[in-house]
């Protein structure tokens, strides 16, 4: 039986498959984040009334950028870590004989 480590083509296929799944997740989370951070200036620009609406003493846009933005990024990063652990466990289970040349440490 040839292991993946012996074969450049197989290694390339493995790397590609693995990175595709990881990248799909990263890009998905990044898209949400980028829509939020690049969308807010547009909301401020196009809908100044909505941005300036009063919410408990804050203006809506101040509350969002000055306070709520931080917990939103925590949620995104928590979600990413959970999903990325799951994907990596799957990958490791799917390719049990993939171990290559070196070992960690």
């Amino acid at each position, binding site marked *: 039986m040839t292991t993946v480590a012996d074969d450049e083509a197989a290694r390339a296929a493995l790397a590609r498959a693995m990175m595709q799944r990881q990248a799909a997740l990263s890009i998905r989370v990044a898209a949400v984040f980028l829509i939020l951070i690049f969308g807010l200036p547009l909301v401020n620009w196009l809908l100044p009334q909505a941005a300036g609406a009063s919410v408990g003493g804050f203006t809506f846009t101040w509350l969002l*950028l000055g306070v709520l933005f931080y917990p939103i*990024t925590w949620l995104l990063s928590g979600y990413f870590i959970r999903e990325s652990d799951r994907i990596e466990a799957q990958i490791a289970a799917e390719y049990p004989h993939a171990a290559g040349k070196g070992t960690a440490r």
Partner: protein
Amino acid sequence: MSLIPFLFVVAIIIATVGLGLYATRKASSASDFFVAGRQVSVFMNASAISGEYLSAASFMGIAGLVMKNGYDALWYPVGYAAGYLLLLLFIAGPLRRFGAYTIPDFAEGRFDSPTFRKVAVLFVLCIGFFYTMPQMKGAGVTMSTILNWPYWVGIAVVGSVITFNVALGGMKGITFVQAFQYWAKAFAISVPFFVLMSVYGGYSGALKQNADAPADAPKFARDTTLKFAGKDKAPANAVSFSPLGLTEMRFPSTGAATIDKISTARKPASGEDPITLESPSDPSVFVATPLVVTQGGVPVELNGKPVKTAPKIEFANPGQVAFTSGSYVPNSPTNRKWIEPYGTLTGKHGYPLLYTYSLIIALVCGTAGLPHILVRFYTNPDGRAAKRTTFWVMVLLGVFYVFTPMWGTLGRSLLPELYANNKTDAVVIALPRIFENKLLGEILAGITSAGAFAAFMSTFSGLLVSMSGAWAHDIYGKMLNPGATTQQRLTAFKVAAVVFGIVSMLLGLLVESFDITLMVGWAFAIAAASYFPLLLLGAWWRGLTKFGAATGMLLGGTLSLLAILTFMGIEKKWLPFDAPPLIKALLEQPAIWGVPLSLGIMIVVSLITSRHIPRDISSKMLRLHAPEEMGYSKNYVE
């Protein structure tokens, strides 16, 4: 009167040195020095990264910037914190799995190119020195605010303490110290604020004052005597009066500032009648009143309202001036400009949307490309721990940053006189002193001063470790003396720490008249257009070649730097020409073109030189991305 803050500052310095010595006792191996033995726990490492990251700009600068510019400045803390999300999504895990010591290690290992290591080292040192300058300035300014010591004393104190710590213990010595310093800073930014709030009312109430009276601006609540800077500190000697109403200034008979120049706050547009202002006949008092802008004798209108301006004066020599109670505070934006987006910060060149986007890109991408932060991810045991660390860093930073605009907001309500003599940067230290109870005020000011010191010291030590590591490991160990023993490399590290420490202190002396946040902006803009594209494409695109990566990094980084320097040259009138506002906005905030330019060059040049893609690129990609248990990860140095 400033004894108590001084004692707090001494205490934080002693704690820093003591903890450093304690943690150093076991730091002996090379990996202890460079990556703290790769055994730092997730939470400790997250505290240390946050401690290192929260610099003078974060602790003092953001609160001051929010006070000065309002909503627009909120992008700074958000960008500083949210940049870690991009780092988490695309860079943290792969970088740790690749297992190199430093970013230049990554550059060489990913492209099999020792030459590229040199380019990468150059950027570590360049970004590092740009980032140390504002830390040094912060130290000098704080010491002179608290104790009236000369500017250079604070620099000498912070510089030598940290140089000593780093030379002694390397990365292991500072990890524990920086973790401690995060908690010191978090305490210092939050607890005094709660005490302030319990007496003077909350965050949303202070914001509401601005939202409810958009056409108004802060006024002096009592007669206030202020110290002003002279011509040698320009532009800090300038006072632009409010076009809303009257401001009365009295010059004391002794030690008064003297007027150098009188002009108008608003630059006249072409065609408008020039306004000439005469020096007052009574030299002991100056009354500024709104001035109507006219064109051909007819008042100019904008949106149906007459356009007004007000006098602007520049002082010749440093001295005192007294403002009469009820006067409008000079140099302060109106409530509307302050609380609404697109005010004085992003709107200054007339292209607020462009400026905002460029600022966001610089902050978010720059954070993900700072070498002294990235080097810390190697101290995690594995890629999984690197990701968890990033998550905790985001939590710790968010908890800290959410407080910074609160200081700026309360500062505007309670201590607006900081606008008048351009001292908004000191709001975190000055605000606690408004308490009736002087002892309480001094103690709280002591806590925030100690927090500010923790900020300069932790960031400077991180920068010094990354620069000394780059020297000892990348330049000495790999280029000058490849056969060096571990002992020789450790000696090189220590020598480098001392030399770089001294150079940083000298550089700090040169930048007294530069803005802290502006200087940090240089480092971010360079990092965003150099390291960020390198790491992003290097980790995810197999087609990136060393030629592509190196040209993109060099051109993107240096052009961004040149743009910022050109803008400064224009602003400070060192250059004999002016530029149209659009160009000025793009020069001041180059990320919006610098980052895409760098990425674009990397892609195009890589496609042209595609035969230089390393032969074992698939193995490299597996090493970057395969989970540890698959056995592709590797450490460069055990």
